[in-house]
Each structure stands twice: as structure tokens, then as C-alpha cells.
């Protein structure tokens, strides 16, 4: 049992261990502990407790690193595939917009220039350009999802 406790120095010791103290705290603790058995025991018990924490051994389970890296590689491939399809989706979007602009702005002029009925040019553009572009625009974002479902790689954990 300690004969006399010095709470202010115990708090300084705690602050010092938590790295919340000032250099002045450190100096005062050092000087005080040299002549105070109770605070010396407090500091010693604190240091033993901290040292005791290093007596635990927590290691990753056998095979955990390999399992993690397999999941990381798989996820990286999925993300890369998703990026690839997204880039193609952007191309499809650009084609759709471009086809619509051509249809609206250039279609009539081209029909008149080549002596074709404007309705035929419009339908031609719709069938050969705009509709396929819209189809790709819808299809591309769905492909990675369909692919993940198909090969069972929707989840990695």
C-alpha cells in the first residue's frame, strides 16, 4: 500500500506515457520520482503494463495473405473490366448524340442534295446509326454485371 499518493504527479506520469505531456512535465516527473517511492511504484507499474502489451502475439492466419491477394487480384480485374466497358459506353453515347445531330441538322440537307426522300434518310439513319448506338449504350454497362453473375464472381468474400 502506498503511504501517500501524489495525484498531480500520477497525472503527469499518465500524460507522459500518453505523449500528452510537455518537456516540463517530463522533467518534473523525473525529479519527483527519484525521491518518491509511491510515484516510483506508480511509474514502474505503468511501464510494466505497457510492456505487458507487447507480450501478445497476434499473427495473420495461415493462408490469409494468399487469400487476400487472390481477392485483390480478382477485384482489380473486375474494376478494370468495368472501366473498359464504361469507356465503350461513353463512345456509344457520343455516337448516339452525333447520329441524332446528323439526323436533325444534316439529314434534310443531304436528302435534298442527293435527291432522296427525307423520310428515307431519317429511317436509314435511325436503323443504321442511332438505334444500334442506343443499343450499345444500354448493353455496355450491363455486360460487366451479366459477366459477374455468369461466372459467380459477384462476391469475393
Amino acid at each position, binding site marked *: 500500500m502506498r503511504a501517500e499518493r501524489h495525484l498531480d504527479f500520477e497525472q503527469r506520469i499518465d500524460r507522459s506515457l500518453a505523449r500528452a505531456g510537455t518537456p516540463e512535465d517530463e522533467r518534473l516527473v523525473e525529479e519527483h520520482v527519484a525521491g518518491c517511492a509511491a510515484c516510483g511504484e506508480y511509474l514502474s507499474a*505503468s511501464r510494466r503494463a505497457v510492456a505487458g502489451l*507487447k507480450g501478445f*502475439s497476434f499473427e495473420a492466419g495461415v493462408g490469409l495473405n494468399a487469400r487476400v*491477394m487472390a481477392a485483390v487480384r480478382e477485384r482489380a480485374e473486375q*474494376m478494370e473490366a468495368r472501366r473498359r466497358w464504361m469507356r465503350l459506353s461513353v463512345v456509344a453515347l457520343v455516337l448516339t448524340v452525333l447520329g441524332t445531330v446528323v439526323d436533325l441538322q444534316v439529314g434534310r440537307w443531304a436528302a435534298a442534295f442527293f435527291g432522296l426522300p427525307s423520310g428515307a434518310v431519317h429511317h436509314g439513319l435511325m436503323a443504321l446509326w442511332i438505334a444500334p448506338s442506343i443499343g450499345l449504350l444500354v448493353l455496355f454497362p450491363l455486360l460487366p454485371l451479366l459477366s459477374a453473375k455468369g461466372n459467380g464472381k459477384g462476391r469475393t468474400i
Partner: protein
Amino acid sequence: MYGYGMALANAVNRDTGDTREIARGLRDRDVAVLQMLVEEYQDRLVRYLVYVLGRRDGVDDLVQETWLRVMERGKSYDGRSRFEPWLFTVARHLAIDFLRRRREVSLDAEDDGRPVVMAPVSQAMSPFALAARTEDAERLAAALQGLQAITREALVLRFMEDMSLQEIAAVVNAPVPTVAARIYRGLAALRSQMEERHES
């Protein structure tokens, strides 16, 4: 792409220059850099999560989920600070989700006077008792298991990861005085174990 991994092999996170290399590797989603980081930090990540969860089961899944999140959100690490606090912040968010799913311990609501519910874990199953390698550690195991998760977390970050109070505050998203109070509380609990031994 794999060049960063080789550059990293010699000096992972030894100084700020290396944190820039880590940031660049994560930004490029370089699998070799990820592998290097996994090998370097895996045991510490396991230890951190065991301290936070107070259990061993479920930790491996969380570790895997953490590294996947690191890869997915690696762009948000800028390399201007140490890698460990950023890694533990990622792991912490996942641990919070894990604990919420299991409705056990709250890591994000504390110091409001309400008692924190602890999952009943038998002493035989305590991960600390199982991991104790010294006599002192065996004595501390029970005390650690009885601490609040947030207190254990502060202890492991301060004394095992050697983080500053500011770094810990950033990881746990709490003010520095709150973090310091958690450390004092944890120290008091552990110290009493040591004093009991001394007196006995």
C-alpha cells in the same frame, strides 16, 4: 505498373518519400504495391482489429475487406502523412459496420454516460488469453477483455503502433483530450493488474 512494387520493396513507409510511392501505387491500383503493403502490415492490421473487436472470429474477413477497400479507395490517400493511420481508419469504418451488424459494441458513440454494451465472451475464447506469450500478458488478458472497445483501440494505437495523440484522434475521429482520457482509463485498468501482482 509493377515497377513501383520493386521500388517499394526496399523501404516501405520508412519516410515521407515512401508514403508518396505508396500513394502513387494505390492511385494506379498497382497489385504489386498492394502485395507489398499486405505483407508489411497484415499482422498489425490483425492485431488492431482483434483489439477493436475483442474477438478473433470475423477478423480475417474484415482484413480481406479492408485491403479491398484500400484498393478501391486508394486514390484518397495522398501520401502526405503516414500510411498506418489511413489504413486503420479504413479498417475502423469496416469494424464499425461489422459491430453494427452484430449489434454489439459501439465505437462511434461514447463518453455520453451511457453504458457500452459488451458482447459476452467467455474467458476461454478471449483472443487476448489465447495470444498471451508472457506471464504479464496473461495477467493483462482479462483486463483487456473487460475494457471498452474504444479504450482497447486507444491503447493499441498508442502503445503498439506508437502513434501520436493527434494521429490517434484522426483515426478514431475524436478530439485529442477524449483520446487521452481513453488512454488514461486503459492504463489505469492495466496498471491495477500489475499492482495486484506486485502486492500479492
